[in-house]
């Protein structure tokens, strides 16, 4: 295990902003895509 404590984990050796910035945006983008897919599916399947 690389990290002593949760604090170390989030600090990420001082690069926390960059590492978590990348992964957070990735998660947000994937979430946006999934939500838009669900909404599009409902719109397509709705009252035709």
């Amino acid at each position, binding site marked *: 295990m690389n990290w002593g404590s949760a604090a170390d984990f989030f600090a990420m*050796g001082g690069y926390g902003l960059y590492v978590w910035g990348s992964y957070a945006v*990735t998660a947000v983008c994937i979430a946006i895509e999934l939500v838009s*897919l669900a909404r599009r*599916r409902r719109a397509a*399947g709705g009252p*035709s």
Partner: protein
Amino acid sequence: MSSATREALPQGITWFKYAAPQTFFPLAGALAPWFAAIAVVLFVAGLYIGFFVAPTDAQQGEAYRIIFIHVPAAWMSMLIYLVMAFWAGVGLAFNTRLSHMMASALAPTGALFTFLALWTGALWGKPTWGTWWAWDARMTSELLLLFLYFGFMALQAAIDDPRRADKAGAVLALVGVINIPIIYFSVKWWNTLHQGASVSLKSAPTMATTMLTGMLVMVFACWAYAIAAALWRVRCIILERERRSDWVRDYLGAGR
């Protein structure tokens, strides 16, 4: 598929059966959740390896862990464009509407991965070179690839008739795929001639095996995710395009 082409085909080839949107729709519905599940499992495994198993890098410290999402995103952005161009080519050659729908379904996910590659590349560049955007050869080609994706989607959005939109998009995707290597090499020369080879985003410092496995697991996770997203989107496209047909009405009526 116009009736003339169907008669012309020898009865032996049955996989053409899946080329009909109606028969492919349930198949996509069945496969997509599986790929989504695989994606979740692989994501969790990949992140675990990336953060808890892979050691700290000698030169870059912890910042290098961004490669676990940056490199897969970059590879996926390229791979998805190639797959899109493949379906576009198949659609033009066999005049099968489903192949065009598949290409249109892949484009947004491809653009998403291209944007992620650019975003994570910039966040990785800042700690390593001190600038968000260093006009590195790969990053610049990635930016141009993003424009190609937007061009494809904008063209398809601008054309009302779905049949013309499919074929026009397909021609553009094929022209684009021929130009990608040309863009990549000219940007590479441009980069090396202007700044010399000093500033280039090396894919990663000498890769410890765990780093490599972490990255490969993430690549397969992104791959599974892209397939799931594309299958879901192609189902939406099929429903939108075939809204008038009876099977959609029955499906929607029954599946309420």
